[in-house]
């Protein structure tokens, strides 16, 4: 009998302690780089502010905030190559911004208007941008994880030196597809990064009740590859971890699971009321670890940034969001006839028939079809 893996460990903390990180700027990341990262984080936060309000005002139908997780998302996205494939969930707005996807396109998706590349077919925040290799996000949890494996294997087969990254939350580690994707990646040594944002909550379920494993990172051991935990609110630490994982993947060293320990400072979505399940103290503790503040303080401490400059950045971000909203809001909804497109590459005879009946019956189409 061998290898008892030790007795179950229970953490005394309801919320996991944040691991220590090195503190020094990772190789290759200049002050200018970090300021650019800060600006993207601020842009995401400004979008969150307005997104939440637009929903309350009934101007958009729903919103999913990133607030608190910008460090993890931007740190990760910046460490990647623009050709790397991204397989996001519904909470990856800062990743999208970091990749350079125009704010206007994001807003059109939030509004579900005629300029939305997704034709208004998805709820807000379920983005898709083929041109940016930002794969279409869906609502079911975890499904994007094996997609990343397939993309990575395809890229390798075609001799392209890129990785794919699956983005998901702590809750998603319980999903079936986490298990499928991790196992396939291990078996085929796929050049993939599993980027888990452990934001402590899956709606109302705390991390401690999601799984009894001490860390999420250690789940990689079940699949024979490396897992590591990183302070997700330290954008530089995240950057370094992803860079390293990417280099290993490209070198044929296989996948990595990165657990970025962070916090969702807002509600799960605009449909959620977090006061039902978590304490004000917990929120306050994590607000004190705000990744935006943290990066700002580092840069200020290093004399790479002044308070005034920071305020200007924030104002600029807000202005950019406001301008984009103004531009997008007047756009009309998608053309009704598009309802029947993209089910298949070409409409089937049945879809043609339904479409014709639909158009004939549309209010304002010139009357009923009998």
């Amino acid at each position: 009998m061998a290898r008892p893996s030790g007795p179950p460990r229970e953490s005394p903390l309801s919320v996991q302690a944040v691991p220590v990180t090195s503190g020094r700027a990772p190789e290759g990341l200049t002050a200018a780089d970090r300021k650019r990262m800060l600006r993207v984080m601020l842009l995401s936060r400004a979008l969150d502010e307005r997104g939440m309000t637009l929903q309350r005002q009934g101007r958009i139908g729903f919103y999913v905030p990133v607030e608190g997780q910008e460090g993890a998302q931007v740190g990760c996205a910046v460490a990647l190559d623009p050709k790397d494939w991204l397989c996001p969930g519904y909470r990856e707005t800062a990743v999208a911004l970091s990749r350079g996807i125009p704010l206007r396109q994001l807003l059109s998706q939030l509004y579900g208007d005629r300029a939305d590349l997704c034709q208004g077919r998805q709820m807000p925040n379920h983005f898709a941008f083929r041109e940016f290799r930002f794969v279409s996000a869906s609502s079911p949890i975890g499904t994007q994880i094996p997609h990343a494996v397939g993309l990575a294997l395809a890229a390798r087969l075609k001799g392209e030196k890129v990785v794919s990254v699956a983005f998901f939350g702590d809750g998603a580690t319980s999903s079936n597809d986490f298990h499928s994707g991790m196992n396939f990646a291990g078996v085929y040594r796929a050049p993939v990064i599993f980027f888990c944002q452990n934001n402590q909550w899956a709606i109302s379920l705390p991390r401690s009740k999601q799984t009894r494993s001490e860390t999420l990172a250690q789940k990689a051991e079940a699949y024979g590859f490396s897992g590591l935990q990183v302070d997700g609110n330290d954008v530089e630490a995240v950057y370094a971890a992803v860079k390293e994982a990417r280099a290993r993947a490209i070198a044929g060293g296989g996948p990595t699971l990165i657990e970025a320990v962070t916090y969702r400072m807002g509600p799960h979505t605009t449909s959620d009321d977090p006061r039902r399940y978590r304490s004000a103290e917990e929120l306050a503790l994590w607000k004190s670890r705000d990744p935006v503040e943290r990066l700002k303080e580092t840069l200020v401490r290093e004399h790479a940034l002044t308070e005034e400059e920071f305020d200007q950045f924030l104002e600029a971000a807000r202005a950019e969001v406001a301008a984009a909203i103004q531009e997008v809001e007047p756009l009309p909804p998608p053309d009704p006839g598009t309802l029947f497109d993209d089910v298949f590459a070409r409409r089937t005879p049945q879809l043609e028939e339904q479409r014709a009946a639909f158009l004939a019956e549309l209010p304002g189409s010139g009357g009923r079809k009998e």
Partner: protein
Amino acid sequence: MTELTLIQGVNQALREAMKADPDVVLLGEDIGVNGGVFRATEGLLKEFGEDRVMDTPLNESGIVGTAVGMALYGLKPVAEIQFLDFIYPAFDQIVSELAKLRYRSGGQFPCHVVLRAPYGGGIKGGLYHSQSTEQLFASIPGLKVVVPSTPADAKGLLLSSIFDEDPVLFLEPKRIYRSLPGEVPDGDHRVPLGTARVAREGSDVSVFAYGAMVPVAQQACQGLDAQGIHAELIDLRSLVPLDEAALLRSVEKTGRAVIVHEAPRFCGYGAEIAALLAEKALYSLKAPVVRVTGYDTPFPYALEHLYLPSVDRVSRAIERTVRAA
């Protein structure tokens, strides 16, 4: 009698069942501390404790698989699937295990689990918070499928489901969770499974609907009275087993049929209703059977209002059917 919303009817049925029988246990995502994302389980954790109201990890095959195990022991688990759209990770457990255990074991292992799932459109939920896929489950032998459309039926059918002997998928039309309150009998109110409800009598055409399409069809029927069209509205409510007798009785009387559901038309549940009529009531039919349904596309977001059968669309279909031939 108390005036309740549909979701309150659900909540009351759960509470009654748990009070009456210690073997009734609940499990699902966010059902405990949070009381369910739609508040179906509000207050139950406090009242019955976390051994009987279990917040689960994010995994539907775990929820259903664990519930199956509990049922094999003899408990009466009621599992919540947060949205019907998220039931698919549990599909194997439902199709291969839950629905087949009694049969494959020669009756040795009955497996009585109730799966509750909010379903349907009308809440701007887009592709993944709106779907109606009852046909998938109705086609699996061994599974009952129930859909209430009123608060009283929500309570009465859920209590019957919990104390039934077979696995039941209990679909809750979330669009009318709160919008249409109604009188609900107090106490142990039961509505037998397998019986349709005549929501409205009529002589000119039979309209078949369930869930959130019942009030839509109801309104359409009422509007047609003025035109001298008297439609009979049947709320199917028990999709499996289907009250075939009620259905045939109505069509034998009216000679015409309109079927309304939110799900896409092709291979939807309405196909079975139409097929039954083509098989067993052909000689009564005076006009083609008409299905008013969602279109054969995924569920859209921005154009949802054009996708779902509306009062207007149902009215026109009824009119057309009555005027035909």
